[in-house]
């Protein structure tokens, strides 16, 4: 049997390192684009201040990028180090987008980033602008391939189980690329990155305005950020991730859990705005419901039902029973292959009928190694397992949405007062923008909690349980690695925040051009 501790610790480690990595990714995605926009304005208008803007925000970009790269390495190692069975079982599909990400995107971004910083005096204006756009393009392409890989974990299309090689194998790469879940996720995630970059620039620019320094620099940065940010937050909200939740069975379970919808309601279902979901009693206490809203969000229609959790558990149980048959046939096939060198056609035909549910059979491995001998009680337990933890999803989703709408408000007002050219006088809004800086990070992290906790109990939805995906390592080794990550990541975060605050406070004076606030006061 697989050590439960190792499973929990592996998940904890992945959660820590992934969430930590994603502190840096959205800012890279957004800021690279903002820098490219600012530099484009510079090249078009020839105004030096836009070059300074590109360079200064580039300095902050670099501080952030360094940690993005550092923590990204961990992610690539970790599938192999801690999720070896996963890597073997789905590497045939999951590995390809990662390899292509490296060749097509990360190479471009990383090669051009050096030229972005050190090529100012060595390249013509236009060539340098091209380099900046290539950095932005590279980072966004990276996101595309990573989210194609992640989208496949959520909704595994274009692949089939092969009992001879004992793994999932690719049947259609086009289906994997054009997976609706992946496409929606990509747009939602990069747009969230653009929002993060925008709020970052907006908040720091607001700080300069509050300090009444470098106003020309601050208002222009603020203007670019508010325009780009507003467009981005609108696409984040309108093209919300949940529109992908209708694709694939596991996504439906996630949706029901987010909404804590225990019973299937008549269409259009109500949206539970607030409440305390209780998984034990399968009931949401103190629920406040808004009629119709959820049905419309989830199905984009007034007539389609959204299945409730209790019904989904029943469906899950049915799948598990079919999965047991599938597992039995699979064992039979392996045996025939081993003993007779080939399989019997009847066994194969029978397996084809049930193999879709093999993954549900594997859920029972948590309780019994042989699967086929599972007791009624074990089947019931496994059926309950098909539902992810409801309360964390319910709350994470609401925190994400609330942050999103707060950001929308800040950006709408910022854009309005920028357009009326009175932003410098709106001190309350400038304070608001400054304190809004953490919001996109909260929203992004909560978004990933929804996406990945909501995928449980699977690593690959309906195909491979999380429980089976781990490497055969010991809990002691996991404690060592988790401790290592915590120590390194804490120290690095402190250092990063220190430098970020230092340079953000210093502002464009850190460029040493002699044109900005702190250089005018002191003789240099």
């Amino acid at each position, binding site marked *: 049997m697989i050590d439960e501790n190792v499973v929990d610790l592996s998940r904890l480690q992945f959660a820590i390192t992934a969430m930590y990595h994603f502190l840096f990714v959205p800012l890279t995605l957004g800021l690279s684009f903002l820098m490219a926009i600012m530099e484009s304005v510079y090249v078009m208008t020839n105004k030096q201040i836009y070059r300074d803007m590109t360079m200064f925000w580039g300095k902050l970009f*670099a*501080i952030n990028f*360094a*940690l993005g*790269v*550092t923590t990204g*390495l961990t992610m*690539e*190692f970790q599938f*192999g*180090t*801690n999720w*070896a*069975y996963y*890597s*073997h079982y*789905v*590497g*045939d599909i*999951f*590995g*390809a987008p990662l*390899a*292509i990400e*490296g*060749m*097509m995107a*990360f*190479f*471009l971004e*990383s*090669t051009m*980033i*050096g*030229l972005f*910083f*050190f*090529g*100012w005096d060595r390249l013509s204006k236009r060539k340098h602008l091209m380099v900046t756009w290539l950095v932005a393009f590279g980072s966004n392409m990276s996101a595309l391939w990573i989210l194609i890989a992640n989208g496949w974990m959520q909704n595994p299309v274009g692949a089939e189980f092969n009992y*001879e*090689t*004992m*793994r999932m*194998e*690719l*049947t259609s*790469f086009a289906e994997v690329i054009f997976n609706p879940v992946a496409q929606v996720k990509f747009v939602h995630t990069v747009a969230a990155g653009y929002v993060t970059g925008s709020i970052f620039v907006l908040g720091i620019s607001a700080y300069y305005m509050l300090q009444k320094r470098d106003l020309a620099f601050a208002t222009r940065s603020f203007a670019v950020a508010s325009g780009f940010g507003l467009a981005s937050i609108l696409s984040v909200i309108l093209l919300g991730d949940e529109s992908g939740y209708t694709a694939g069975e596991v996504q439906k379970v996630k949706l029901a859990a987010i909404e804590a919808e225990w019973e299937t309601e008549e269409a259009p279902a109500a949206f539970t705005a607030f409440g305390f979901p209780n998984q034990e009693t399968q009931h949401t206490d103190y629920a406040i419901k808004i009629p119709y809203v959820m049905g419309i969000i989830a199905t984009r229609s007034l007539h389609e039902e959204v299945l409730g959790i209790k019904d989904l558990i029943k469906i899950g149980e049915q799948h598990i029973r079919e999965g047991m048959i599938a597992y039995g046939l699979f064992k039979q096939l392996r045996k025939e292959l081993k003993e007779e060198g080939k399989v019997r056609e009847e066994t194969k035909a029978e397996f084809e009928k049930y193999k879709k549910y093999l993954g549900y059979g594997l859920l029972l491995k948590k309780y019994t190694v042989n699967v086929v001998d599972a007791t009624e009680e074990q089947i019931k337990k496994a059926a309950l397992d098909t539902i992810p933890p409801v309360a964390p999803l319910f709350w994470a989703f609401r925190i994400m949405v609330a942050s999103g709408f707060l950001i929308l408000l800040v950006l709408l007002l910022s854009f309005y007062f920028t357009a009326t050219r009175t932003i410098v006088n709106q001190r309350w809004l400038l304070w608001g923008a400054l304190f809004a800086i953490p919001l996109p990070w909260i929203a992004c992290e909560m978004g990933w909690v929804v996406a990945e906790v909501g995928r449980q109990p699977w690593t690959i939805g309906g195909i491979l349980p999380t429980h089976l995906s781990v*490497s*055969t*390592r010991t809990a002691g080794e996991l404690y*060592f*690695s988790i401790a*290592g990550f915590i120590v*390194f990541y804490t120290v*690095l975060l402190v*250092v990063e925040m220190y*430098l970020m605050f*230092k340079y953000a406070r210093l502002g464009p004076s*850190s460029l*040493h051009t002699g044109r900005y606030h702190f250089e005018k006061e002191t003789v240099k």
Partner: protein
Amino acid sequence: MIFDYETLKLITWLLVGVLLIGFALMDGFDMGIGALLPFLGKTDEERRVIINSIGATWEGNQVWFVTAAGAIFAAWPIVYAVSFSGFYLALLLTLFALFFRPVGFDYRSKLKDPRWRSTWDWGLFVGGFVPALIFGIAFGNLLQGVPFHFDDELRAFYTGSFLALLNPFALLAGVVSLSMLVMHGAVYLQIRTTDVIHERCKKAVKLFGVIFIVSFAIAGVWIAYGIDGFKVISMPALDALPNPLAKTVEIAPGAWMSNYETYSWSMLLPALAFVGAIIAIFWSMFNAPVLAFIASSMSIVGVIMTVGMAMFPFVMPSSTNPSHSLIVWDSASSYLTLTIIFWASVIFIPIIIFYTSWVYSVLRGKITVEHIRDNEHTSY
């Protein structure tokens, strides 16, 4: 598709080789220079010269490593799974060491405090030294076989310990890779610097070039006479669906030499490693570091191909259950996935080489102490 499955499996092996060579050639000199940093740079400014000789380009070089790992994941999922989980602690140490590089380069010169700067200098040292050593140790262990086996559902069990990885032959292999990359790094640094650092580089090339040549020679003799190789006794057809449990393998003395006996031209590979290093030392001494760089690159190509040739078709032999060893023919992904990886590589690797060359040509030239002083606030 123009290739059958069997050919594609072989091409995949070559492709992984190309990516590993790309990694060793490109990121190799960054690691070598990292390992040399505290010794070749005595003052803060000298250290900044060294750091800035690779600062603008190391990031792209590291992607060879990321891509090689990604390609192994995609093309040989089971190799990726078994090696990364098997070498758990060793890989985590490598990872932690690699952490120092992105932050070290970028953060080091952002504050003036000498303790801050010296801390990051040693961080960059660790980020170069440790991975260069551990990659060699890993190959040293691959050559001896690694203790793992599978159950019927292909779950891998690794039964070795971390300390067992640090056996004498593996440590020697670590010395080979470390000295090879440090030599390569010193040659590159010689191209990019002048005066006192330039001179120190020449000494480093000589010292580590000799260490490399000697350790590589000892390792060669050790492989030929001291270490048992692996030999496939029977296996399914080469184009069969990959199943690592279907063959039989035995451990045999001198088996790693059998490819060299069959294909005698392949003895040119280790010869290339030696000759390249000797020529690199020679050109470095005579102030022709660009030629020396080409020679040390050839030497690295020779080393990696020597190991590949010795082990072929083995990728990851198992010492505890030899028949469960992973070989080129039974570790590969499906035909479709290999096809995709093939086309992605054919399209993108030339493009990568093209724009990387462009970036290097834009950023070419010597880095001097004056250069650092003139660019006090924009240099690393």
